[in-house]
């Protein structure tokens, strides 16, 4: 039924995950790090849906995982935005390496 095998989807998800790792580690700005985290979560969701479709299409639990992952991602983004606003008011910058100390 589905011509594209499971491994192809998983390879795409692996590529997205690797790019997300790069973005989280290498970017200096808090916004970019949050975007990298979103990419990591999205790669995980793609994995869950691909496994659902190809190994357990009769059980919809795989989709539930992805729904919860998207929800967590939204909450994480909102809290990240709140933290960023707070730290921007205190230090006038969004570069992460200006925020190495919690004090002050």
């Amino acid at each position, binding site marked *: 039924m*589905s*011509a*594209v095998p*499971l*491994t192809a*989807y*998983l*390879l*795409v998800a*692996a590529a*997205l*995950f*690797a*790019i*997300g790792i*790069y973005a989280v*580690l*290498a*970017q*200096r*700005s*808090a*916004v*970019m790090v*949050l*975007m*990298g985290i979103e*990419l990591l979560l*999205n790669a995980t*969701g*793609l994995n869950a*849906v691909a496994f659902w479709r*190809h*190994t357990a*299409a*009769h059980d*919809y*639990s795989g*989709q*539930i995982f*992805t*729904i919860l992952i*998207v*929800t967590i991602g*939204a*909450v*994480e983004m*909102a*809290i990240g935005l709140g*933290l960023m*606003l*707070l730290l*921007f*008011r205190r230090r006038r*910058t*969004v570069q*992460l*390496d200006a925020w190495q100390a919690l*004090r*002050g």
Partner: protein
Amino acid sequence: MSTALLQWLAFALFAAIAIAGALGMATTMSMFRSGVFLMASFVGVAGLFVLLLADLLAWLQVMMYVGGMLVMILFMVLFSHDPGGAMMSEMPGLRGPERFFSLGLRAPSHEGGGSDHGGHAMPQMDMSMTTPLRRFAVVLAALAFVALAALLLLRPAWRQLDAMPAADSAHRVGELLMGKYMAAFEGAGLLILLGIFGSVYLARPSAHPGSAARERLQAAAADAPVDVAEAGDPRELQR
């Protein structure tokens, strides 16, 4: 054309959009472009969801990310020092995808002069977009991809079913959410509520020191110049 060929074509298209968008997000010098590239990547993944017959999730993906998160990301990008990336794109050392995805960014001073924030406004600031860990991050990301791909290609065979999901999968997902996964659903709701409270509490303006607290801090800074003076910069406190 056969259905299989069409499926492969659609897969190649959406996978290319997803990966190219992610690569552009991670490498371009302009944060605004980064946000738009990330959304392109999410739309590509939504296309893959449609191809996997998870159409409810594809809608969810587009509405949550493109509708909600893009707004948040673009709002956050406006706080950054150089959101358009015009200054960064003047850097000489751009190579590979960084160069490709930053094409066409240009400082306004080159187009008609008279701009007050040219590329050399603050020479003492470290302007680079990336940490010194960047080379290490490239190596680690490449290693992660190679390891994951090797695990995928050398795996033992999974048992794969060729069953088709039901036509109204949204109905089944809703029943599962309200039945078997009720606790997770309610927990996510509680998490969202707490997240909203937390972020509003963090971001509310009165989290600043008020005027009385500010005077106290300044008095303390005058008394003990070593310790408190660095914690509370007076320029910052006047704000």
